């Protein structure tokens, strides 16, 4: 009797493990399948309601975390503010000049949203619980015009791209995901490179730049370059703000051909995002 029970347990365990491997083999590399679309269609409304209901509690806990964090950042921010004030004065003059030139060249006023792209606003309703994945699920999908590879931004800059869609939800792979690669350009230096993640550090991206004689400096801005090539699946339109160079020592630039970039968007704390639909080249 006992042996029979043990055999049955082992058979169930083996079945579960084989089933998991079979599912993994069948679904790896696919965007989304009909089963996932069905399950998300059922649970997306529940997730949305729970997400909204739990927002006050989430905000309270995050406020506690941010309060501890803010104490350390206060001094640094005051110093940055002084520098920013000086830059703002010169920036205003440059802005006025830019307006005139843009009118002359008939350029689009908004650099962040590329021409032809239609922004669709969505909310983050689910996040991956492990440290290894940097994916979020948002509450807009193919029914709203979202397609795979659409860039996703928030008020600060690029946050990632859509990697799978269902009728009412989409999966967004963040810049901090280990498989994310974005072709970028550094302004004003003009150096081009590829931004990759550093697993476990969403506030630190690694910029591996292509061979260039020009050097880059701390504080320079990084925007999408708009090209894609071998091994780089990014199809981001050009000139979407990505982040700023925070570490660019000559040794790193010359010996390792890399520097460190801090993304403009806070990838740990996302709420409302915009999917740029219709503009994917």
């Amino acid at each position: 009797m006992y042996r029979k029970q043990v055999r049955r347990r082992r058979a169930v365990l083996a079945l579960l493990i084989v089933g998991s491997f079979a599912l993994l083999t069948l679904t790896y590399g696919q965007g989304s399948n009909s089963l996932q679309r069905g399950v998300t269609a059922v649970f997306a409304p529940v997730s949305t309601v729970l997400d909204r209901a739990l927002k006050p509690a989430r905000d309270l806990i995050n406020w506690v975390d941010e309060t501890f964090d803010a104490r350390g950042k206060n001094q640094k921010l005051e110093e940055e503010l002084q520098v920013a004030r000086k830059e703002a004065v010169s920036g205003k003059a440059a802005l006025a000049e830019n307006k005139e030139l843009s009118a002359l060249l008939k350029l689009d006023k908004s650099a962040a949203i590329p021409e032809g792209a239609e922004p669709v606003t969505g909310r983050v309703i689910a996040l991956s619980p492990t440290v290894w994945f940097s994916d979020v699920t948002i509450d807009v999908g193919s029914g709203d015009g979202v397609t795979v590879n659409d860039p996703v931004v928030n008020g600060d800059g690029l946050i990632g791209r859509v990697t799978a869609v269902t009728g009412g939800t989409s999966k967004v792979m963040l810049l901090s995901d280990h498989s994310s690669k974005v072709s970028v350009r550094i302004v004003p230096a003009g150096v081009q490179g590829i931004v990759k993640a550093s697993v476990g550090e969403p506030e630190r991206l690694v910029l591996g730049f292509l061979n260039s004689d020009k050097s880059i400096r701390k504080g320079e801005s990084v925007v999408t370059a708009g090209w894609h090539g071998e091994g780089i699946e990014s199809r981001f339109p050009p000139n979407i703000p990505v982040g700023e160079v925070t570490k660019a020592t000559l040794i790193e630039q010359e010996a390792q051909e890399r520097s460190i970039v801090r993304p403009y968007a806070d990838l740990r704390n996302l709420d409302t995002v915009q999917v740029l639909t219709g503009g994917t080249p």
Partner: protein
Amino acid sequence: MILTPKITIRLVLVGLFGVLLQLTFFSQVELFHVAPNVLPALVVCFGLLGGSMTGAVSGFAIGFLLDCLLIQPLGGASLVLIAIGYAAGTFRERFEIHSRLVVPLMCAVMTLLGELGFGAVEAMFGIDTSVSVLVVRDILIKSLFAFFLGWAIYVGMRRLVRPALVDEATVRRTRRPTVLGA
């Protein structure tokens, strides 16, 4: 645990609610820059209360739902959570839990192993970038969260499935009658 239809429905609802709560709440709050992951602890509790089969099946089901809702390749999370549930259930079948520290410790250790398991599954398909040492810190903090949350989950689940627990019924039968006026 005696699995009646009523108890099975309760367990299914706990699993569903656990996954939804993880995705909409725990994954989106941060303390010390780390979001808690309660799912390994939840599966440990299933295993400790129901045995190895309940642990393994619940691990598979919770992992499957998680992968479906996150639109990830199916089976990855299931593999890790099956191992956690089966290990917790086997522990329960072989040893008696005497200390109150066993459950939270088990949740913390299994969360740590679970995170390493998720990493191993991901590495199986290739990680094409650098991995920061901060991952180790994040995993340890997640385990610490599991230590504290695990006990609460266990107590809540035990209360929910109390009528089905075999040892609970034994305790009730062997309890001495209260003598009034003594």
